[in-house]
């Protein structure tokens, strides 16, 4: 099996073979939802961090009577999977107050009979101020203590250092992959890259790194995607389902980079490995490429997008947001204005996540956009 095939299998299976193996060794698995959670703390405690998503939810009927139609379909799909027992294999879940929808998904899950034995929310400030950094650090300390207390383990400083290094390795490998994608004739389709990224959040990072290295080797011998396709950047609301990208690419485009929280925004910044590992982690997670939840950081998000667009030589950008996702919807309106000003053709799309996704409706708009910008 090629590395890509293995990763695709991991991405497609909720309780995948790596998680099963981990559990069979008597070790714990804890779900998380957001890029502001320092996963390394779990990993150092020999707990597998597993990113909770809504992928594969067939409908949202259970979730809908709690989270309502004005809540985004991603948060509803996550809750649906939780309520229908599909996350029963987790030993706990740790959320972050990322947005109004996801913190309410947490509230509902925590209050439901399907609540896991360990339900925790790590409150992250919405400003990047010195006081907020102190608050965040205190919260990360509390989180570490809660993990230690509940699971009867300790986060050993040496193991934390090792976890930081393993995670950094992962980020560096992903950047190499993105460098290849940025070149002419990228080795992978954008939909395959999403698959790789999503697999990386559902298996131990050490083993993921081994597969990534193999993937990079294989990429050298792989038949390249021809350069005549329209090169795109995708940014916006959470996107871990290859289907949306597949649809875009089916129309003659190639997604070569992104500014997504499953993509570059989660791995672009490294953790400093020279000083105290805990402090370095806190700094890294607090200051990493900001999510639209961080107030006053729009200029940084804009700059990051432009940097990604230039690096990957894109012909245009798709800014998507899930309906009712005000964080990304509002940012996208501003980003569209500023990207177009910078000469980057941009399409803004409102979409749904999961079973409500309506590929047909979006197709026409994407097609028209591609025709407009085709080289």
């Amino acid at each position: 099996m090629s590395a890509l095939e293995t990763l695709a299998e991991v991405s497609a299976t909720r309780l995948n073979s790596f998680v099963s193996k981990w559990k069979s060794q008597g070790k714990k698995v804890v779900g998380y939802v957001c890029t502001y959670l320092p996963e390394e703390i779990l990993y150092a405690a020999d707990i597998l961090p597993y990113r909770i998503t809504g992928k594969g939810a067939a409908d949202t009927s259970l979730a809908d009577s709690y989270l309502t139609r004005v809540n985004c379909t991603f948060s509803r799909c996550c809750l649906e999977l939780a309520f229908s027992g599909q996350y029963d294999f987790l030993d706990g879940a740790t959320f972050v107050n990322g947005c109004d929808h996801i913190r309410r998904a947490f509230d509902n899950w925590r209050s439901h009979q399907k609540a896991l034995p360990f339900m925790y929310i790590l409150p992250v400030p919405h400003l990047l101020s010195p006081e907020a950094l102190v608050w965040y650090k205190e919260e990360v300390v509390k989180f570490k203590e809660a993990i230690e207390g509940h699971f009867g383990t300790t986060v050993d400083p040496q193991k934390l250092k090792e976890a930081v290094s393993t995670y950094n390795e992962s980020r560096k490998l992903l950047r190499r992959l993105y460098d290849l994608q940025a070149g002419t004739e990228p080795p992978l389709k954008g939909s395959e890259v999403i698959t790789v990224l999503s697999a990386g959040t559902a298996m131990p990072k050490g083993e993921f790194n081994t597969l990534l290295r193999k993937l990079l080797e294989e990429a050298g011998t792989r038949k390249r995607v021809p350069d005549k396709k329209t090169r795109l950047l995708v940014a916006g609301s959470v996107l871990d389902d290859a289907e949306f990208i597949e649809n875009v690419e089916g129309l003659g485009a190639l997604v070569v980079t992104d500014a997504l929280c499953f993509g570059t925004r989660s791995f672009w910044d490294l953790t400093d490995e020279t000083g105290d590992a805990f402090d370095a982690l806190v700094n890294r997670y607090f200051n990493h490429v900001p999510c639209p939840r961080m107030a006053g950081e729009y200029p940084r998000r804009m700059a990051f997008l432009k940097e990604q667009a230039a690096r990957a030589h894109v012909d245009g950008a798709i800014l998507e947001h899930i309906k009712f996702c005000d964080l990304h919807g509002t940012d996208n309106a501003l980003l569209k204005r500023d990207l177009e000003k910078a000469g980057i053709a941009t399409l803004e799309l409102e979409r749904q996540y999961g079973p409500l996704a309506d590929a047909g409706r979006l197709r026409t708009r994407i097609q028209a956009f591609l025709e407009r910008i085709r080289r």
Partner: protein
Amino acid sequence: MSTPKADAIERIVEAFEMASALPEDMDLESPEMKALIEMMPESRRNTFLAMAKDPDVRKMSAVFNRCLGIYWRKLLSAKDEGKKVVFVPFNFAPEIFHALDMIPVCVEVLTTMALTLEEGIEPYLDLSVERGLPDTMCSAQRAVIGLFETGLLEKPDLLVNGALGSCDPNSKAFEYMAEKFNIPVLYLDIPFYHDKRALDYYAKGYKNIVKAIQEMTGAKLDVDRLREVVENTNRASELFFEINELKRNVPNPVPNYYNMHHTGMKLTMVGTPDAVEYYQTALDVSKDRFKRGKSVLPEERIRLLFLYTGYYFDNSIYSWFQEEMGVSYVMDVLTAFDFNPLIDTSSVDSMLYGLAEEMLNLPMTRQLKGGWDMPDNWLSDMLYYARTYKADCGVFTGHTACKQAWGVYRLVADELKRQLGIPSLRLEGDGWDSRITPMSVIKDQFEEFFATLL
């Protein structure tokens, strides 16, 4: 949209001045009055009549409209007088700006006031969306953004947002205004919890903002002026605590219409002598009604608690409750200031800390940050208000944009039922946009619900 003629604020001020100039003994049946009423658009007419019909309500409204008219007129001359104007959301207390001789404008109150414009706010809601803003954002800020787009509303000198952590649409609306219209902005982060550590963090953020405002505008905080403002706030708090005491009576003598005014005053003018005058008038009217045994008509049959926002686009609903349904509207989250502290005025530091504490207890900040069942959060407040004000039922008006409230409404309503036996009604609509659910439909739904309670 066809472009209306004049500056929005100018026209709003005119409407308020007109309303406050109405004589106390006004005869609604006189031909002149009838002609005037006929000319008004429907929702404005309903709101006007709700205020004008009842002499008790009119007394409070006259003071309210006069004070607010004067206040908004100041906005028109702000530039000439060198005064800075700052836009804030409804969970940012205005006192600090009064103390700095700046003019605070609460965006949500401005949208409510803009309902008096003859063209309504709908064209502005739509325009904001045509120009890029998602239609899922809150109409209470969208109207102001639409007004900016037309140029009918002058840009303020500064935006200060304090909704981070309690409402994403609100925080993002301010960021959008700042970026799109190039207005300087400051943000105040709301902590997740409600304890001493959280208050210290929040107060530090608040003090940073006060410092930054002074640096950005050149304004200087004077301790005596601040004390004067805070003493007015304390006086206003004592008065509305007294009014709330009266509300606990069965039947409740405080007119339903009071709730809207109470909030409007608190969010704009608290800290000024005018606000004290208004609350004093409201207290006098309520006391007098208590003495006369006056309450809702025909008799108090139901005591209603709004679990979050009310309706603003047509206030006739409150007089309909009062005069036809026998429903006493005892409290809503936006009128809920029972946890307002009396502020220690001994030093600048104690006053700023007190103002921060006041803000941490303002609507939305207090109830919608953090988790729904944490101490001093939504559920605990609803249980407290339902018990204290002896509510028989609750209603969630279902303002579409409040995703954080929608997301746990069911949990709160289930607990109210389980712990206090109080049923709740969940509606869907919009507080400001009359097109989402028209008032006639809203009234039908209420009527059906009330029938199940009697």
